């Protein structure tokens, strides 16, 4: 369990948005599985925490939801990006990229010294 990281505040939203961008409309359970998969099972994710996060994104207008039918013919609520959401993903991803690059440089520099 030690190697599995908790989800940091704020990063979950970006993961959700990015996942929706690549996969298209998806239900909550699918999103949760997908996020875990992509992280290579390195993330410790309580599926329950995903729903308030989704609600928050919906309230902020970056995603919207509607009821649909899953691949296994089950009624499920599907989430998809709105136009504002698409913009948000690009922006947030770029910002995140920059932050990690800078941080990586710092850590790298500290290592060389």
């Amino acid at each position, binding site marked *: 369990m030690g190697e599995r990281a908790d989800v940091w505040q704020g990063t979950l939203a970006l993961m959700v948005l990015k996942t929706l961008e690549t996969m298209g409309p998806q*239900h*909550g*359970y*699918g999103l949760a599985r997908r996020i875990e998969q992509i992280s290579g099972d390195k993330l410790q994710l*309580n*599926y*329950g*925490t995903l*729903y*308030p996060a989704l*609600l*928050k994104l*919906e*309230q*902020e*207008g*970056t995603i919207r939801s509607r009821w649909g039918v*899953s691949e*296994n013919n*089950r*009624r*499920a*609520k599907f989430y998809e990006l709105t136009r*504002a959401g698409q913009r948000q993903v690009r922006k947030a991803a770029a910002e995140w990229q920059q932050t990690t690059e800078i941080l990586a440089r710092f850590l790298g520099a500290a290592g060389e010294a």
Partner: protein
Amino acid sequence: MQKLRALWMRLCGLLLHPRGHQDDFEAELESHLAMHTEDGIRAGLSAQEARQQALIKLGGVEQTRQAYRERATMPWLENLVRDVRYAPRTLVRQRAVSAVAVISIGLGIGANATIFSMVSRFVLRPAPVGDPSTLLSLQIIADRESCCNNFSWPLYQDLREDARSFANVAAYYDLVPASIGGYGEPERVWGQATTNNFFDTLELPMVLGRGFSSNDELQPVIVLGQNLWKRRFNGDSAIVGKTILLSGRSFTVVGIAPAAFHSVDQILHTEFWVPLGIAAQLVPNLPSKAPRDYHWLDVVARMRPGVTRLQVQAEMDTLAARFAQSFPATDKGERFAMEQAGALPMRDRSSVLIFLGALLLVALLLLAIAAANVANLLFAQAASRQRDMAVRLALGATRGRLRRQMLIESTLMAICGGIMGVLLSLGSTRGLSALRLPAPVPLDLHVGLDWRVLLFCFLLSVLSGVLLGIGPAWAAARPLVPNALKGEEALARPGRKLSLRNLLMVAQTAMSVVLLSATVLFLRSLQEAAGINIGFNPRGMLIFSVDPRVHGYTATKTVAFLDQLRERLRALPGVAAAVCTDVAPLSGGNRSDGFSAADQSGKQLPSAELYMVTPGYFEALGIRRLAGRDFGSETAGGPKIAVVNEAFAERLFGETDAVGRHINGPTGNYEIVGVVGNMKSRTLGEQTRPILYRSLAQSVEGDPSLMGYTLIMKTAGDPAALSETVRRQVYALDPAMAIYNEETMEEHVRTAYVLPNLAATLFGIFGGMGVILAATGLYGVVSYSVSRRTREIGIRIALGARPGTVEGLFVRQGIALTLIALALGWPAAWMLTKIAASLLYGVQPHDAVTFLCVPLFLVAIALVACWIPARRAALVDPMRALRTE
């Protein structure tokens, strides 16, 4: 933006579909678990294991639900909303208590709203001009004087040229009477004469047209007030550029001023404005522009942007010093004073502020009494709810939550009271606005509710709701839970003698002692005022005024017109006498001059009232003649004669018989031909003033009255019935003559009683309410204590106590509280009623009757209020009392 949107969505979630969200989420959660379980089964787990796994991975259904709910809405707000929704239900359940509370607070807030609407109108409201904060009214304060004077023309000119702090300085002459043309019966209106930069200085947003321009100085142009324009010209939108008739002369309308603007000072009610340069056409005795020591102009100045009041004052001081050096004869020792334009006139400010302050204090006192009363009611209520509270506490509610809920209830109650108060004050301010002050000039004293009043009421309601609720809420939220659940008294702490309820009750009674003292004082003052000898008999008289001068009459023609009119009126059936004067007595203000004896003594009389009268005036008004004769058939050019009143003769000659003496005054030398009894000249409350009556025929030429001339008809029948015939007689002589101030003399005198009446009415209402509230408060305290001690009473009676003893027990308790309250309230009343001294007629503020009667009366009321519940205690059936619960 996103945050805002989210907040909005959460609010909607809270208010619009509190349940919908939750159901939707339940379904989503269910589908999530189902999918997860399916996957588990596919991976080879048993159905039960798979479900178990899914639940663990989810992190708990209840936790998820909770987290989702908190995100969907705003939990603290949700709780608040729930409490607010719950509060009306509680209030409705305790209907009687709520009704009493709302009515009490409503009366208190209503009183405050009424008084504060006067404060708002006269103290807080800025003038309706462009940027009122940079417009100043200027005044001169002469050497060693406390208050102020107007400007002379030369001084205004110097100031306008020299002062650098001002962008513009304008002057105006504040009252110009005129008759105006247009539709309807002829009408006399008041206006002002202004310098041509007046409207530019005020930056008044005109309704139509423009103000005066720099080359209007000597042009016959006029700006009309919006109301006058609507009333006389049907709001003709093409009026700008047209010519109208003002006192028989043609004026070209250049603009319409907004209805809200009546005059810079917000008190005078003027309706037209003409350039100062041509005002002499309307006001024949307009002061001359030349003398530097004749102070007749009001001055307003617009500060330059960026200049502060301090800088202005500094420059004004420098200028005053320079003027004093250049013109030592007239300007020595003078300073300039200034204030924001539209503020209360400096001269009257302190007395108005004291009056309003005293009234506001009284209204707040009343509200405090009402709030104390309601707080006591809530204490009793809390006692009956202790079980409910204890159950909730036992079930895990926090005390904070209970307190908050009770505070919300009391605040809601107070806000309902506030709404009721505002509604009440709608009526009372209308009544106040309908009052007419005795004054010879047109005043705008309209009072209404504005946003300041509404804000004040709202804040006051919330504040009183919280204050009155805080004690009961505190007490109610900490019952001794075990006691309460057993149905026993749970609010009283062991070993506590001094309860908050008793303290409130004492405070409330003490306050009502103060109120009641004021009430009795003002009632006594009204009684005294009714007994004031005004010196004449107002019965059976109709009065009305005309001002022939503003219709272009010369002095000779004016006198002839008045003579003809009197003759026609005298000839009417039922008219016993028709006389004429310039201003009817008790009109609130009058002219006065200084006089000196024209003999060796040269004794001075600094100020005597001046009246013009026609022969028969004294007889018609029932003023006693003490010596000499009445006026006769003097001619305008003949030697001037006068009749004086007793006070005049005594002050100047030391004796009543002054007939044959000569006196000097600013209007010439007079021979005294008669002496008459004293009468009240300006107001009811005045000390007897010396009066000099001149012959109307001899005075119109040299010293015409700006107020016009008042005709007085004496009749044996109903004077009001004469109105129509009288008007016909006037129009028969001149169909264009405006008639104004028509009323019976009794109506006229009644307006002189407006102040003692108003004070007595207001204080009568306030004091009466205070006493009733105090009495119900006392009743409440005693009956609460009776109900709490029912079991004890039962035991006492069972052990042989007589009903009288039991009664005495409770009456003693109530009376003790009342006596403590009296000991506190009486000295406070003694100190506070001093403020009212200037408003009283013929009664000392420390009136013995008042200060003896009030305590006795209160004790009597207290006895009754205590006796009723005490009697109930004495009738307690011991068997039932001991079996309670």
